[in-house]
């Protein structure tokens, strides 16, 4: 059995850990509100963008010559995966969930004998992936210095993806991120952005649009923008998810620390009492023997 002094030290250390997790929870809660707000505010833009593109691609006259970003390169040999994670840990299963989702996708691609390339956004994802897929990672980006997700950063990633696409480095691009549902639930998502996957959400608006200039030109201008927008959306969702995940993880940690302190306190009190009883017995039996 641990000595009284040891127990006392352990109680103190657990208590100070609890203080830290509690503080982290508070910070995450405050940040979450802001991140959630901006994720919700960012949704109309990406939705509208999607709508416009949907209308455009429905109205496009010459499907054969559609821009490659929309229709694909015609082959599916090389897959590019953009895995978006956080730069900081201590946020529960946030990063591992994305990685898990990504890894199962990677395995599927490699099983089919296709080529895989990975871009990691956020250092945590890079740390976890480089052990197994180190040779596949072609780029690692992290935005440690920017405080909030901003469009400028997303645009940088988007431009890089497009550059690589135009250089013919890959055929299909998928982004991985966590979609924010609520504080406890974040859903890891795999979203294909190149070629644009519109199947299943075909809304049959037969309304004809007037285009100025023509469809092709608008589309070829719009599609690169859409990629940045989708990446930006993923970044916003990710930052809200990260804070939410961290908040619930820290909440759990605080509660567990509380339980541990209770248990240790009981043990401490018991052994204190045992020590007193032992001393009393010694004194009494000493007196009796006289």
């Amino acid at each position: 059995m641990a000595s009284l002094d040891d127990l006392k030290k352990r109680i103190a250390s657990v208590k100070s850990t609890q203080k830290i997790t509690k503080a982290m929870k508070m910070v995450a809660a405050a940040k979450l509100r802001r991140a959630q707000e901006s994720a919700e505010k960012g949704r109309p833009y990406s939705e509208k963008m999607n709508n416009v593109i949907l209308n455009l691609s429905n109205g496009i006259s010459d499907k054969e010559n559609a821009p490659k970003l929309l229709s694909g390169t015609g082959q599916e040999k090389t897959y590019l995966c953009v895995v978006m994670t956080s730069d900081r840990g201590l946020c529960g299963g946030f990063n591992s969930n994305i990685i898990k989702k990504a890894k199962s996708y990677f395995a599927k691609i490699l099983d089919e004998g296709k080529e895989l390339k990975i871009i990691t956004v956020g250092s945590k994802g890079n740390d976890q992936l480089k052990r197994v897929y180190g040779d596949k990672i072609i780029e690692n980006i992290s935005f440690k210095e920017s405080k909030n997700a901003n469009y400028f950063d997303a645009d940088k990633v988007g431009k890089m993806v497009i550059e690589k696409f135009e250089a013919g480095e890959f055929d299909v691009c998928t982004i991985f991120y966590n979609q924010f549902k609520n504080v406890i639930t974040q859903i890891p998502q795999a979203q294909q952005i190149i070629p644009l996957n519109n199947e299943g959400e075909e809304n049959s608006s037969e309304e004809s649009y007037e285009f100025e200039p023509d469809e092709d030109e608008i589309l070829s201008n719009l599609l690169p923008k859409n990629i940045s927008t989708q990446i930006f959306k993923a970044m916003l969702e990710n930052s809200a998810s990260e804070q939410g995940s961290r908040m619930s993880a820290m909440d759990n940690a605080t509660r567990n620390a509380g339980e541990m302190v209770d248990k240790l306190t009981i043990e401490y009190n018991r052994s204190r009492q045992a020590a007193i009883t032992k001393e009393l017995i010694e004194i009494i039996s000493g007196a009796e023997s006289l």
Partner: protein
Amino acid sequence: MSEEFKVEIVNPEKSFLVKDDVSEVVVPAFEGEMGILKDHISIISFLKPGIIKILSKSGDENYYVEDGIVEFKNNNLSILTSTIFNLADMDKSKQQDLLKQAEEEANKTDINDQSKYLADQKVEVLKTLN
């Protein structure tokens, strides 16, 4: 019957402006300025750097945009843009900053014709503001 329609401007960060008593909007479309009134035919076009004028009962507003897409459908005008400033909030120093950036961009030699054209447009528009 009213002659008003709804306009919504969104940028990636948020819904920038929603107004539903607008009588006319003039947007700097890629192939020239375009005025949009109620019951305009459905149209999709994109923007070059310029000034968006919004005319409504509650007063006129002017915005400076650098790029974007406009979509008009069922008397709903959506403007998607990544860079937008309200001219009323824009002071001289901000203008100068933007102008300087645009000029730098226009003077680059390694850009293609289209981005060169857009940068020139920016410079032109910003100069007229001063």
